[in-house]
């Protein structure tokens, strides 16, 4: 009896498999297209996962919806519009350029410009102070003679 049980448990992995691709469409090309699009979309339940990789029930439903709409012949943009109309720009991993996302998109470049400007300004200021301290010929001579004395000691 025990042996039989062990045998059954050993066979268990053969019959069980990971549920990654449970809800596959019959058409592999369509499925690939769906996954490609879903990777650009955020799952709203587990927000750091894409719609393609999420196991949340809502993600499964949304994948089904995307798959159905693709089967109906809708293009990717139409499907994205459909989802954005319901869940907002938040579903897109790449936020669209809009008035309130300008800072997000161009803020880093503005910071880079400001940083570059400050660096340029500082370097110029430093060069000026260095140039200002250039010695007059007399002072130069004096310094040399003083240093010479120092060396001869």
């Amino acid at each position, binding site marked *: 009896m025990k042996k039989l049980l062990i045998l059954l448990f050993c066979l268990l992995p053969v019959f069980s498999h990971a549920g990654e691709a449970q809800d596959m469409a019959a058409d592999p090309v369509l499925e690939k297209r769906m996954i490609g699009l879903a990777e650009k979309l955020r799952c*709203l*339940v587990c*927000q750091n996962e894409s719609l393609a990789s999420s196991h949340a*029930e*809502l993600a499964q*439903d*949304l994948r089904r*919806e995307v798959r159905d709409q693709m089967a109906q012949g809708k293009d990717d943009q139409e499907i994205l519009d459909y989802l*954005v*109309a*319901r*869940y*907002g*720009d*938040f579903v897109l991993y790449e936020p669209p350029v809009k008035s309130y996302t300008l800072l997000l998109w161009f803020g880093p470049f503005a910071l880079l410009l400001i940083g570059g400007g400050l660096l340029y300004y500082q370097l110029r200021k430093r060069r000026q102070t260095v140039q200002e301290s250039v010695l007059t010929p007399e002072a130069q001579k004096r310094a040399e003679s003083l240093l010479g004395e120092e060396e001869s000691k």
Partner: protein
Amino acid sequence: MMRFTMPLVIFLVLAAFLFVGLGLNPREVPSPLIDKPAPAFNLPQLHDTAKRFSPEEMKGKVWMLNVWASWCVSCKEEHPVLMSLAQQNIVPIYGLDYKDKREDGLRWLAMGGDPYTLSAMDSDGRIGIDYGVYGVPETYVIDKQGIIRYKQIGPVTHQSLRETILPLVAELQKK
């Protein structure tokens, strides 16, 4: 002096941004449906599947659509609040039983009480998607013209009723 003020200023600005960020709730995604017409549907009613419900019928009334499910844990927390709101007879609450089995939904209402004028069955969750539902419970306040005016994500609380929902309902009912 400048040496220390600049880093300090930068630090303070950063700290202020991060502090504000700590208080924000990333689970509350602003709904694009606010100020848009409530999506139409026509679903069987939970108690009497021969009858159907459509938001069309609610034109001319301010009402609340509450998305719930028997499997939803936070709905337990919300339920007494809805029960007390229903008893006050201020605003009709309609339920959308989201991705639920009919028996489970009926049992849930039989046990905890039924605050809803009626509940519609969204068994496969398609209407939920139309309403941008992603975390049950969610509640919509819909005005007389059928426009969504407010969406509560997560359970309705006595505080959110008092501070946001009921004042809004009163204002919408006056219009």
